[in-house]
């Protein structure tokens, strides 16, 4: 036993044993939280179980009263917490709840991506203008880092809560305004949507508008689809964001919910002169209490796959696998990195053995 360990044991032995007995209280809080989660899941499944008639009602109302799609009461301004709960049993919220959450998360993660491209955090790989990485791992981590915060958020228990607010202004070209407040910036998605197709189980909307991030505007066109069948539901959105004349980004989101399973996936394809130069897919799957987060990153000549797991509120593990085809570094690589959030919460510290790299936490 090391000297320090022995000393700690000695000190511990010298301290009184009568520390607070709060295990009963802790278990009670835990069970109460679990019960609340179960109720939430049950509410979700019941919610979708009655989805078809309710959806039909909401479609009918949407056709007659488009403003109601923003929430249920035709006010000019309405906020929603992003939990998907909104107005609970209100019929029209059946439509709003998943849409709001899906769009908000897509907007936020897309904005993170754009911020990286804009050079606010200059670590985004740019295959046409490659950086000189210190090592292969560093190079791969430059790919991964812009998605770590999204992954971390999705893995944390409150991942679905994106603090956002939707307002509706009658008569505007883009009547919906989704505002996402972050500590250091404000993201606004101005958009209009049109119902383009529907049947008993599905609705499809066309969306057009623009992102506004700290005054910078990006044109957005896209669509969203919702389908509900029995206890299963599926939501998809696809946005194309025009960055400049030669670059655009396509963000796809997909959310499938079943009785005890859910799967959320995001795809980000970055195009330059019409050709994809970065393709990323991020998928999160939950079955019962098990969670899995997988990230795949493909750039010309490189494909990499990562599995992420949250250990505690400040630590993740990142299993990686990638193959290098260039002559001098040819081969397959695999390992596990530990990712720690820095004390000031501003950076990720990636470590594996002697390797350590700090990158901004976007």
């Amino acid at each position: 036993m090391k000297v320090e360990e022995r000393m700690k044991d000695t000190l511990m032995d010298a301290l009184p044993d009568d520390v607070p007995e709060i295990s009963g209280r802790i278990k009670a809080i835990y069970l109460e939280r679990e019960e609340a989660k179960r109720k939430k899941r049950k509410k979700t499944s019941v919610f979708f179980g009655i989805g078809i008639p309710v959806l039909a009602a909401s479609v009918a109302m949407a056709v007659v009263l488009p403003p109601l799609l923003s929430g249920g009461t035709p006010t000019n301004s309405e906020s929603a917490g992003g939990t998907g709960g909104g107005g609970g049993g209100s019929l029209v919220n059946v439509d709003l709840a998943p849409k709001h959450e899906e769009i908000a998360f897509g907007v936020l993660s897309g904005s993170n991506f754009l911020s990286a491209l804009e050079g606010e955090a200059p670590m985004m790989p740019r295959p046409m203008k490659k950086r000189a990485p210190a090592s292969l791992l560093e190079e791969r981590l430059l790919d991964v880092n812009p998605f770590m915060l999204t992954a971390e958020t999705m893995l944390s228990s409150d991942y679905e809560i994106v603090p956002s607010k939707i307002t509706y202004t009658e008569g505007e070209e883009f009547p919906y305004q989704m505002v996402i407040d972050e500590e250091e910036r404000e993201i606004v998605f101005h958009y209009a949507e049109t119902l383009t197709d529907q049947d008993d189980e599905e609705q499809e909307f066309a969306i057009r508008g623009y992102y506004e991030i700290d005054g910078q505007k990006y044109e957005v066109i896209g669509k969203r689809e919702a389908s509900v069948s029995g206890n299963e539901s599926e939501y998809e959105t696809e946005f194309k964001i025009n960055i400049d004349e030669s670059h655009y980004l396509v963000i796809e989101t997909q959310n499938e919910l079943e009785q005890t399973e859910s799967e959320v996936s995001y795809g980000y394809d970055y195009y330059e002169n019409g050709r994809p130069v970065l393709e990323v897919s991020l998928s999160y799957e939950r079955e019962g209490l098990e969670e899995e987060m997988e990230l795949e990153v493909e750039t010309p000549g490189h494909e990499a796959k990562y599995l992420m797991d949250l250990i505690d509120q400040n630590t993740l593990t990142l299993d990686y696998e990638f193959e290098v085809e260039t002559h001098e570094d040819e081969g397959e690589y695999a390992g596990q990195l530990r990712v720690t959030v820095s004390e000031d919460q501003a950076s990720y510290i990636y470590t594996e053995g002697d390797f350590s790299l700090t990158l901004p936490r976007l």
Partner: protein
Amino acid sequence: MPNKDYSDIIKRLKSEDLTAFDEIYALTKKAVYYTAYSVFKSKEVAEDIMQETYLALLEKKNKLREDLDLPAYLVTMAKNASYDLYMKRKREKELDEGVGVDTVFDPGPDSGLIRRIKELLSPKEFEIFILRALGEYSFKEISKMKGIPVGTLTWSYQEARKKLSAALGERI
């Protein structure tokens, strides 16, 4: 020396057997409590950190590796939670007003060795010694919490160790 095997108790915890939690609590509560107490010297705050630590264990139980050194894991969680809370309060200037932090490390009666150590060391040395030896905080962390340069800390700690070694011999 190999770590004790906690795989069975972790398996039971993962299967929602809360008697496993009771056993884990009984086994680790003292270490978790004093890890927090060494920083805040407040029973109430230490209790809050205990609660946060064990709740996190329950909520993350399905992610635990079965070869985990459970006591070390819980102590690290309590240590990190204490450090984060301390730094948060420091930023919020609460510490300047003494909110939530007692000034004296006083674990109560029946702690003769701790009282003896306290007599042998200066208040500053005692505080550094407790944070380092009992709370297992790094010099860098103590430096940030207390605003004392790392060099001064390491020197004070070594001085404290010398004094204790001379007075208490192999007891410490």
